[in-house]
């Protein structure tokens, strides 16, 4: 898993590449935690290059979303591949974490 962070006018764009599994996904929570500590509270996460996510990945997204909720911030997900979207839907996470078809749509919703 690789993260690419870009500060934009309306918030922080985080692009994730590779796999969010039990080994890699704690890194997502740690890195976003650092960005939150620096005062960023509005995130768009571009999953267009994310090939795979397991419950560990869901856990790290959930923990980040919960932290942001406490700060009146938000995390919006964009451009999920079919297999990743399926995991969000089956787990019911698509009902609690906003998902958009594109980064542009997510950014507009910030």
């Amino acid at each position: 898993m690789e993260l690419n962070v870009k500060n934009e006018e309306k918030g922080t764009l985080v692009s994730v590449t590779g796999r969010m599994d039990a080994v890699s996904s704690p890194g997502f929570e740690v890195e976003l935690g650092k960005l939150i500590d620096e005062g960023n509270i509005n995130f768009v996460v571009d999953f267009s290059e994310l090939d795979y996510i397991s419950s560990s990945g869901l856990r790290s997204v959930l923990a980040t979303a919960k932290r942001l909720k406490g700060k009146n911030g938000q995390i919006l997900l964009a451009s999920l591949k079919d297999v990743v979207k399926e995991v969000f839907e089956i787990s019911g996470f698509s009902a609690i974490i906003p998902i958009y078809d594109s980064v542009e749509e997510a950014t507009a919703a910030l």
Partner: protein
Amino acid sequence: MKSIRLPAIIENLDKFIDFVHTCVGEYISIDKKIMEIELAAEEALVNIFKYAYPEKPGQVEMQCDSDDSKKITIEIRDSGIPFNGLSRPDPDITADLGDRKIGGLGIFLIKKMADEVRYNRSGDTNVLTIVFYA
């Protein structure tokens, strides 16, 4: 039938998943299906890494088999404490963000991804059998 046997530690997750990927890839070519099988395998393995051997280190054995071109069977064996995750209640997937828990989600995903899943305690061994129809 192919198999792999390694210490039950998270550091070996990649090796197990590479094994699943290679083995399943010989039988099916749909990337989404392969990912679903990898996901079920990861969830089962991570539970074993975390809970099967609380006292002393142990091993996990994984077998991958296909009896014809359509049915793929993944069998995962450990000789840790008896644990039937399938008997646990499903997590509440309708709770809102503040109340949402992650526990039990791994087993739930296995049940949803697989066409059949069975648990057996055979002697001192936990056997989880996960079946997929390609």
